[in-house]
């Protein structure tokens, strides 16, 4: 019956979508979708058009005769570096008719060797990168007197100390692979050998260092991640978040019930083939309904159990939900007493089936006894019956009842001329499903008892 109500609800919801759902689907989802697309586009732009350039070209300028890099500067970006040094000819010196070609030399050497060569001279140092385009140059101290170079001195390009040396007219370029962090580049402007110390003193030296970056920062990946995340969010807000929370919960509950039911059915089916009683172990304990069903299936054979299973699906489903007792939805065929005696003619049970049922009920009788010891509601029932009459009147006879109404014989016993519900010994008494007629009779009796009680009390009071 719940199925039907669910269906009704769903249909009613589909008919008019809630405001929540419209907001989610109509506004939030497009926003997320748009953001996701923007992110992906930005990511693609960063990977292609806005990709950081792998070429680094940094320059520095100095006025002194000597220019040296600090240890570690050569391999700042990459181990391979191309160094270019050029002499700047300032405009003023072009006044002379001859434009002197000032030689310039560059050498790869160790820091201490460069220091030794330039001791007593003005040296500008390159200590690092100011930005990707400019080198940081520390200009030489303007010490007026520089040491005079001895006569026995060797020229720059002839010195034994350099690992690599190159000279050129006005500019020189050298490719270097740095193996040692101690390696530096030393640049000498002008030839000092000939005692010509004034040549090139007015022009500056530019040193240019070119690297190729191996690892470029990847700015597109965060955008791709963000885009993927936003796309997932858009999807979620269009589907899951757009639903009513209550419906989500109910759907979860339904899912759980279905899974449970399926669990039981498979186990039950297997159990009735392989081992009797194995299906029973799989089911949940604690409710009479389940145990009753298990008992039904255990000895009755595969077909029987299967049939009875198919005829009572709704009662199993309500295991986790609060028990709704609908007197109208009682499954008459599942009750062992009724099944024994095919009173209701429309059930159309055959003789063989009734015999089978008799057998099953014998079995259930065994189980009932064992269950009765543990049934808490049993005592309640007993006390009620005891209150009504004494034990002598109670008979648990099966056959031999001279009442034409066999059904009532089995269900009810005659106590003091009244028809009383038999103590069947199981704890079905907690919540039993009875027919409307029985209910009316019961209520009628109850009303009668009240009257009798009142009469008795009245009599007693009068006495």
């Amino acid at each position, binding site marked *: 019956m719940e199925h039907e109500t669910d269906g009704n609800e769903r249909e009613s919801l589909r008919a008019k979508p809630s405001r929540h759902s419209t*907001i989610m689907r109509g506004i939030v989802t497009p926003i997320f979708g748009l953001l996701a697309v923007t992110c992906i586009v930005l990511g693609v732009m960063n990977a292609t058009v806005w990709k950081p350039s792998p070429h680094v070209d940094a320059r520095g300028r100095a006025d002194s005769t000597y220019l040296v890099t600090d240890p570690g500067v050569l391999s700042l970006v990459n181990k391979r570096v191309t160094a270019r040094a050029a002499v700047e000819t300032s405009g003023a010196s072009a006044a002379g008719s001859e434009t002197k070609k000032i030689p310039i030399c560059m050498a790869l050497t160790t820091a201490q060797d460069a220091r030794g060569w330039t001791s007593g001279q003005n040296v500008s140092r390159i200590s690092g990168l100011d930005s990707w385009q400019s080198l940081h140059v520390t200009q030489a101290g303007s010490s007026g007197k520089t040491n005079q170079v001895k006569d026995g001195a060797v020229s720059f390009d002839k010195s034994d100390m350099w690992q690599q040396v190159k000279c050129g007219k006005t500019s020189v370029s050298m490719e270097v692979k740095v193996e040692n962090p101690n390696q530096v580049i030393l640049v000498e402007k002008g030839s000092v050998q000939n005692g010509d110390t004034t040549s090139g003193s007015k022009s500056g030296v530019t040193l240019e260092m070119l690297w190729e970056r191996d690892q470029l920062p990847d700015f597109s990946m965060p955008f791709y991640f963000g885009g993927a995340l936003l796309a997932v969010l858009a999807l979620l807000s269009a589907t899951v978040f757009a639903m009513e929370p209550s419906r989500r919960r109910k759907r979860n509950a339904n899912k759980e019930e279905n899974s449970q039911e399926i669990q039981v059915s498979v186990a039950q089916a297997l159990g009735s083939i392989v081992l009797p009683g194995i299906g029973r172990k799989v089911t949940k304990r604690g409710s009479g309904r389940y145990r009753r069903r298990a008992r039904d299936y255990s000895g009755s054979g595969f077909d029987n159990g299967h049939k009875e299973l198919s005829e009572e699906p709704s009662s199993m489903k309500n295991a986790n939900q609060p028990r709704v007792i609908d007197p109208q939805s009682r499954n008459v065929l599942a009750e062992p007493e009724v099944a024994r005696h095919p009173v209701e003619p429309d059930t159309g049970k055959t003789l063989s089936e009734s015999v089978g049922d008799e057998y099953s009920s014998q079995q259930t009788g065994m189980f009932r006894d064992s269950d009765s010891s543990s049934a808490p509601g049993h005592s309640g029932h007993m006390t009620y019956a005891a209150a009504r009459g004494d034990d002598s009147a109670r008979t648990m006879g099966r056959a031999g009842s001279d009442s034409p109404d066999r059904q009532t014989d089995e269900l009810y016993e005659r106590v003091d001329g009244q028809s009383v519900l038999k103590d069947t010994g199981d704890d079905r008494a907690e919540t039993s499903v009875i027919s409307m007629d029985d209910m009316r009779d019961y209520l009628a009796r109850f009303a009668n008892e009240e009257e009798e009680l009142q009469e008795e009390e009245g009599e007693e009071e009068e006495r």
Partner: protein
Amino acid sequence: MKLSMQILTKLLAAFVSAGLMVSLGGCEGQVPKVQKSSSNSSSSSIGTPNLTTGQEAAIRKEIGQVLDKANESKDPAGLGDRVTGPQLQIRTSELEIAKVTGNLDPKTTIPSGLAQTVIPTNPGWPRSVFSITTTTQDQQSKRLLVLTQESARENYKLWGVTRLFQGAQLPKFPVPSIGSQMGSPDDKGLKTTPVEAVRHYADLLQNPDSSQYAKEFASDDFRTSMANLTQTVQKGIEANKGTQNQTFTPQTDQIRVMHSSEGGDLVVAQINSVWTRQAGEGRESSPASDAEKALFGNAKATSAMKVTYVNVIALYIPSSTSQEQIHAVGAEREPVKVEAI
């Protein structure tokens, strides 16, 4: 309402993160900085060798070219580029002798192959490099070459060459890629300081029988050959009732020291000696060897002859805790001046 709040916070987070990302985009990234501490500490504690093996080979090649050129022309004029110190004197003398005799003495051969090189890491000047060549083609012993660079603005020059004694045990040195340490003439912690060891050895050479330092030194080929030579000449001089006298003077400023990895020092030093031979009975004193004869030339012989030699000794001085004696591993001896007095 709760749900809309959740949505709002999500949107806000998305916008903020997008804003951050946009600000990053278009940048080149951070400019790298020089790691100063690592480079300074490494250079000061360990130090890099002053030369690579390639550079050392190039230097030896250049020296070899200068020597070959001088050998061919028998002209010592161009030697000054790449030869200095005692070797300059020795080589000049050898060339003059060769000019007279027509051939260079076989002992002047310096092989171009290398057995071992010892390159220091000391950053200052003057610097030395000890290189040991292979044996010569005619199976002469290995040569120990000492190359020096006097100042940063000068090049390496061949300072000293000693022929190693046969079977001489050289101490161990670190490989040239790691580099070794130069020593100084007054190193402590050894049997004697290097300059003292050279003085004692000179004394021992001068007074082979009565020197007080005889116990400090193990016997070596040089002293043995010197003793033999003196004995031979003594016989000849006694025959004509002459006298002979040798004085050995260590040149304490011409000394090069290298620390070995065994704790001792390898020392190469110049010891000048003057051999005065006086012939008795009015005889002439003549040159004692072909070399002396070549140097003397056609000068007029008198009764006395004074020959000046340049000796270069290579000594290994063990550490003070060692049980070994100081022993010479190589030597070179060359007359540089012969004059009749």
